């Protein structure tokens, strides 16, 4: 199941890219900026600003789950999608839809003319694409066979035996290590990092070029020990040449409201550029010896502090 296809992205790979987001993720990171990506099922997102107050949703809801302000009382809702069908203003809409591989490929193929310059292509993201092993393999193969550069963005949590079939068709991967300490990792994301680190090793052994990424979330992942720890780990992975730190942003917050969920990171502020620089420097002190590089992106430019 796919929850979004985004054209013309410049992040997550080289050149101009089409981002395909798989729906469903085994992790529950507190800061997740795509909360609609977590569940493996269809969900309803609400955007009250688009509501025109026509009242149709309230009229059709069999569970009387629509409140007076036309918001959904999620405790009553059974996800029957009757309300989304009649909400022409798309104030309530279903996220997540199944695609046939052919159909998905046609969508990706539409932007093929843009891929040739600066090494563009498709990036599969999520959610966690590696947990959609069969679909991932098929679509990645189709793209790969047709000469489209394939990148996968992953948190690393999946069964190697299942997703290894997809690896031959993947040109590069972005893999997250949110925290180096297994316990903290579990506390922050719901799962320990052992499987993730193991997968990174095995994917690297397979020969896939990997960029490791860490989201810098003040108070959660931004300690120097954490970054150093990850950098140490990175230095042992042969096909990792780059380590990117991602500056936390709170653009995901409205999506929590849209899904009727609380935002766990309320009040966390975006890390200062200074701090990003310091952390990058910290990582580079370790990575330099191994001819690897840490950076973060500011205004579309790489900031490499040594």
């Amino acid at each position, binding site marked *: 199941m796919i929850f979004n296809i*985004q*054209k*013309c*992205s*410049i*992040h997550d790979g080289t*050149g*101009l890219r089409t981002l395909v987001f798989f729906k469903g993720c085994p992790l529950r990171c507190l800061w997740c900026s795509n909360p609609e990506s977590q569940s493996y099922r269809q969900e309803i997102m609400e955007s009250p600003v688009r509501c*025109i107050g*026509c009242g*149709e949703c309230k009229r059709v809801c069999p569970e009387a789950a629509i409140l007076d302000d036309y918001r959904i009382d999620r405790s009553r809702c059974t996800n029957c999608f009757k309300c989304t069908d009649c909400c*022409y*203003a*798309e104030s309530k809409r279903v996220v997540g839809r199944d695609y046939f591989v052919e159909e998905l490929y046609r969508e990706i193929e*539409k*932007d093929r*003319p*843009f891929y*040739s*310059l*600066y090494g*563009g292509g498709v990036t599969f993201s999520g959610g966690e694409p590696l947990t959609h092993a069969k679909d991932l393999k098929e679509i990645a193969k189709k793209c790969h066979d047709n000469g489209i550069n394939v990148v996968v963005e992953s948190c690393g949590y999946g069964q190697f035996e299942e997703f290894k079939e997809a690896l031959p068709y993947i040109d590069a991967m972005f893999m997250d290590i949110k925290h180096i300490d297994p316990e903290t990792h579990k506390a922050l994301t719901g799962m320990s990092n052992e499987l993730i680190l193991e997968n990174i090793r095995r994917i690297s052994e397979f020969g896939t070029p990997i960029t490791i990424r860490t989201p810098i979330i003040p108070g959660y992942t931004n300690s120097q020990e954490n970054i150093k720890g990850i950098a140490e780990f990175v230095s042992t992975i042969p096909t990792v040449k780059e380590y990117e730190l991602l500056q936390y942003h709170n653009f995901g917050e409205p999506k929590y409201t849209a899904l009727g969920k609380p935002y766990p990171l309320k009040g966390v502020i975006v890390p200062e550029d200074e701090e990003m620089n310091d952390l990058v420097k910290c990582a580079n002190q370790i990575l330099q010896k191994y001819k690897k590089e840490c950076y973060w992106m500011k*205004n*579309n*430019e790489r900031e490499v502090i040594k």
Partner: protein
Amino acid sequence: MISERIFRLSEKVRNTPAEICLDRARLITKFYSEPSMEPFILRRAKSFQYVLENKKIFIDDDSVLAGHLASRLHAVPIYPEVTAWLYDDLETIDTRSSDHFKFIPGEKDELRTIVEAWKGRTFGDLTGALVDADMNTMINIGIFTKGVSNLSTMNHAPAYYDMVHRGYRYYIDKCKENIAALEDMDIDTMEKQITWQSMIIVMEAIIKFAHRYADLAEKMAGECSDSERKAQLLAMAENCRVVPENPPQNFQQAAQFVWFTHLALMMEVNGGDHCIGRFDQYMYPFYKKDLENGVSEAFIADVIHEFKLKFGELWVLRTNRESQAYPGCPLWIHMMIGGVLPDGKDGCNELTNAILHCMDDLQTKEPCVSFRYHDGVNQDTFRLALAVARKGGSHPAFFNDSTNISHLLTLGHTLKEARDWGICGCIEPSVPGITDFQSNAGYFNPIKVFEITMNNGVDPVTKVQIGPRTGDVTTFTSVKQLMDAYETQQAFFMKKFIVLFNRIISCHAHALPTVTASCFTYGCIEKGRILQRKGAEHRYSAVAISGVANVADSLAAIEECVFDKKYLTMSELVKLLETNFEGKENMRQLLINKAPKYGNNIDSVDEYAHWLADLCNEQVVQYRDGRDGQFTTVIASQSYNVVLGRLIGATPDGRLAFTDLADNASPMIGMDVNGPTAVVNSISALDPLIPQSGVLVNQRFDPAITKGEKGLDILETVVRTFFNQRGQHIQVNIVDDETLRAAQKDPQSHRNILVRVAGYSAYFVDLEKDIQDNIIARTLQQTL
């Protein structure tokens, strides 16, 4: 970095309020008050001569190039003998919301007297008498506009590439030789003789006009105590003695030459959209020679800046309606740079880069600098051009050699000619020096025709049965039926439109010649015919098509919501449109959200855009224009999308009554939600190879995504890929909503934000609120 002198000049040009100058109006009225039986061409030539001999001239303290349009900086002359509308619009010239002009106290009254004297006798009255009553209704309700009826023919593109090596004397001698070779006289040879005599009069007059500046500069030099300024004035005097009579000897003289010529085109009569041509090509030899002679790059840069500011200073007076449709006073004076040479090699050179660097330092409203792209374009120069456009000044615009050259080949040019193309009008390719192109045949408005089709030939706004009865749409059972009905309606109105234009253009041939431009367009001197009387070998006129997205989206909405998914019946839809969705907002939302929209790379709706573009073109190209030229189409609206939108009721795409239409070839405002790649793919699907005069694409990007080298990569990728898919033109606006909103609140501190309106740039703060809002509403292309 710009010099202090250029900074002062630029501030002056930008901060001097536009004013009305009565100098020309007085002179021309006086001239025509003297009785004469002379043939009209000769009389026009002499009237221009009289103006040039007597108009007030001045030299600005910071200028090294001579020549201004009027008697004061940033003032505009009046053409009372041409403009009939002045009688109606005069009172609001100084108060209207868009492009208003100040009067010197007392002069408004004087102008009123002048206009009164011309009332009923102007060129505009001549053309006005040819508009039938039904045509008038069609204009008033917004089916089409009336082009060039109150001005001379436009889009002059002199053969500067040869002129700068010859000087006017060469052309005068040609005319004299031709006259000397005449033997017998018949009515045709008489016309030739008159034409050559007129040309000689005009060219000599312009030379003398330059000498007047030389005299003034010498006089001022004599009184000047500052040695640097004195030297500048003496150089100016010398330059004005050399050019335009003789070939220029250096870069500055060549710039002066082009400027005098352009100025003459504009002073003779009130047409616009004249083209500077391939400036980086014909100026290159002068540039190179100057550098070899030790002239500094900085000096050349200053000349380029001042040359551009000269064009930036030019304004024209338009009708109230036009001042809203073309806000910010554009003149579409294109300076072409880059592109292939006639032999197919890349034409980018050091001067191309120097011009771009100048733009990087200082953007001007005019000239429109247009960068010609091709596959083999110098990568560094192309990136530099993109970086300059990104900086926010919105120049240069980008044009695709391959599409434009193929258009010109289909219009009958040789490959070598076609490769030397320039832009005349907003985006229309033509070959300078050999073409008489008319970019302003008028705007044709398909969505109005669609509205009339939905009402069986009746205009629902005025309730007039204006078109044929093509059937009650509530009985229709397929989109095909509706499209057929539309086709019949459009054919009916298109014919009216063409007939009207041909009447008007015929008036030019019999009353309003442009002699200066005729001197410098091949064919005219050879044949002894002015442009308006078929002087040039290549002649075409473009019909502008607006609001394509609204028609495509409307058809798709009807197909999807009425015929396919049956959300509503045709009768219900008609009722909704009649009532402007009153109390039925959810049905409007249905039409918006449940049907595909043009601009998102969705075939089922993009095909309708293609169908419409093709249909318009087929219906247009079957006619010949009044000068036995070809007709072409151009998909462009300028800001008529706002003006015409006010005349059109609710439409099936969910657009509310009397609101803005989609601009140019763009998707409807806010409907393109899949990013710039989807937009350009949709436009490619429309097929930019069909309209031989182009497809205007305006794409606004968020500054955040276009930052850095990677941001430039994006721009480059979008532009290159669009052009690989036959795109003809694309212009980028890179300024965020916040900045524009701030400029609305505090215009004074945002006076320098240039935005792309449509084929031209204007200062944002000079625009009317409506247009400003429309520009902000145009979807900002962001990526995440």
